[in-house]
């Protein structure tokens, strides 16, 4: 254990990790981490293990465990829109991940959001297997992998096998709009800060029609709170849609299964009849 400069005691082995990795071994030096409130109220006592170049090491397979996938704001359980799916298609209830609330939509945008919600079965880009956008990719109910090198950090998401590059030293302005934007990253102590712009206006925040314009600017902060947890915070700024910036936050959990891996999820094939069915040759034609 180490005494950190802010006075907190740093543990190098969490109890959970001990039981997972060190079955039957005698481990000394186990201490509970001493939570220190810092910044936006996150426990910041933990100091992540380091990569060879001395940065917090976030490499691994992670996943959010919440219901923001259905609606980033708090919501009750609700029936789905596809009758045949029954309870399997239901909306799972959730407390939401948005700090403060409700979402500060401009009046016209609030109307748009309502229309999106009503027509979500046809308008939600997820239904058509389109690239998911940011931050939505983070809290879809699938794992993603962080590949960490000094100059480039790659995030490979399961959904649609979307992949995103975070440029750590070759910062530039987005060359043009894209689905996942252009991400410039930097380290602020224990935190990976990712500044993303250059989005198109085609992606949503969730299945409930919450949306943004091509003026979207996302600043994400990834901070480890244990060997197996990150806190994820995303500040959303979009002057064409919202009256002020707003923020969401959630824990991310390491996938601990042996042989955990990002599997193939090429969903284009699954949506072809949906998208192109109307221009299929009909039998007898």
């Amino acid at each position, binding site marked *: 254990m180490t005494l950190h400069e802010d006075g907190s005691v740093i543990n190098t082995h969490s109890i959970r990790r001990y039981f997972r990795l060190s079955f039957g071994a005698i481990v000394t030096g186990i201490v509970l981490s001493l939570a220190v409130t810092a910044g936006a109220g996150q426990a910041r006592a933990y100091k992540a293990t380091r*990569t*060879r*170049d001395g940065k917090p090491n976030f*490499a691994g397979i992670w996943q959010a465990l919440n219901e923001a996938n259905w609606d980033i704001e708090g919501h009750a359980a609700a029936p789905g829109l596809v009758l045949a799916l029954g309870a399997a298609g239901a909306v799972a209830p959730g407390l939401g991940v948005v700090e403060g609330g409700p979402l500060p939509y401009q009046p016209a945008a609030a109307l748009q959001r309502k229309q999106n919600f009503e027509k979500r079965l046809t308008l939600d880009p997820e239904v058509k*297997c*389109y*690239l998911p956008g940011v931050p939505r990719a983070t809290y879809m109910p699938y794992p993603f*992998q962080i*590949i*960490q*090198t000094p100059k*480039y950090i*790659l995030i*490979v998401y399961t959904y649609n*096998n*979307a*992949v995103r*590059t975070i*440029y750590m030293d*070759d910062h530039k302005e987005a*060359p*043009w*709009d*894209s*689905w*996942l934007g252009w991400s410039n990253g930097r380290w602020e102590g224990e935190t990976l800060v990712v500044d993303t712009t250059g989005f198109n206006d*085609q992606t949503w925040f969730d299945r409930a029609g919450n949306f943004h314009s091509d003026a979207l600017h996302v600043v994400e902060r990834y901070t480890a709170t244990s060997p197996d947890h990150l806190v994820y915070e995303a500040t959303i700024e979009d002057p064409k849609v919202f009256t002020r910036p707003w923020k969401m936050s959630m824990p991310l959990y390491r996938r601990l299964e*042996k*042989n955990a*891996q*990002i*599997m*193939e999820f*090429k969903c*284009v*094939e699954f949506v*072809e*009849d949906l*998208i*192109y069915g109307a*221009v*299929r*040759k009909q039998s007898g*034609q």
Partner: protein
Amino acid sequence: MSVLGIAVAAVWLTPASVAAQRPAAAASAAPPSAAAKPWTVRRTPDGQPDLQGYWTNSIYTPLQRPKEVTKEFYTEQEALESMKREAETEAEVSEGPGAADVHFDLTQFGLDKSQSSVALTLRTSLIVDPADGRIPPMTAEGQKRAAERVAARKQAGAPTDAVQNLPLQDRCIHMGRTGPPMLGQKYQNNYQILQEPGYVVILVEMNHDARIIPLDGGPQLPPNVRQWLGSSRGHWDGETLVIETTNFTDKTAFQGSSENMHLTERITRVAEDELRYQFTVDDPSTWSRPWTAEVPWKITQGPIFEHACHEGNYGLYNTLAGARAEEKAAAAAGKKPSN
């Protein structure tokens, strides 16, 4: 949209200027014994040979040796002439169901290989084994399967009858030649290799595939789990990254392979600006013997842009909608559709 990325990133290297590259090109093209220079590959901090960077496998050399060519290597003069001939065709590309009506000019947006880094190899085919440079004969089982696949396609109707009848690459599902094995195609043959402890990652621009290859000696996916790109595991054999891939789908069908194809790729950095990429295809139910090809990869410039193929695939919808409109017009004119 993202298709335009290469125009920005491309290194200008016209076939004429390739001549200036002769020494390096000759070294890459010569038989394996040519590594005389004392160049050694850098190591990553965790000790892996460092393959990282942006690479292209654009090449004019065909996979199989043309029937009229009887030698394994061209002279430099012949190789340059062959490249030049191939480069001239890039302004006029027609393919797919609309080939008669539609053509692409790959030079227009810098998509052609002649505006990118292209390795000059003296080889007359990418296949190096068997010695005739051609894919070995198909087994009886392989021929039967090929015939069944043709029959199934025929039964499904005309290519434009349904989206499922169209080629996989037109549907943005699987670009047949970006692999694995990674052979490169007419354009956008860009890759980025990244390494971290325990993994090598190959980011394949087309079709935004990140091949995450674990090096931990863990097992492949269970045999009942099949993926378009298969399941890949890697290990280091000295300076060479060896990637073993199994668990392909029956639909992946590389050059007519079965789902049981076992692919072995070997990647070696042979110079600061060049990788040697070899792959061996072993599928006894399809071919009488394994076969091996070799492709030089040249260093290129980044970044790798987002390849949102499906999201902007208006051409696919319009191809089908056009066919329906033609049928309607033909029906109205009281005659059978020409399709």
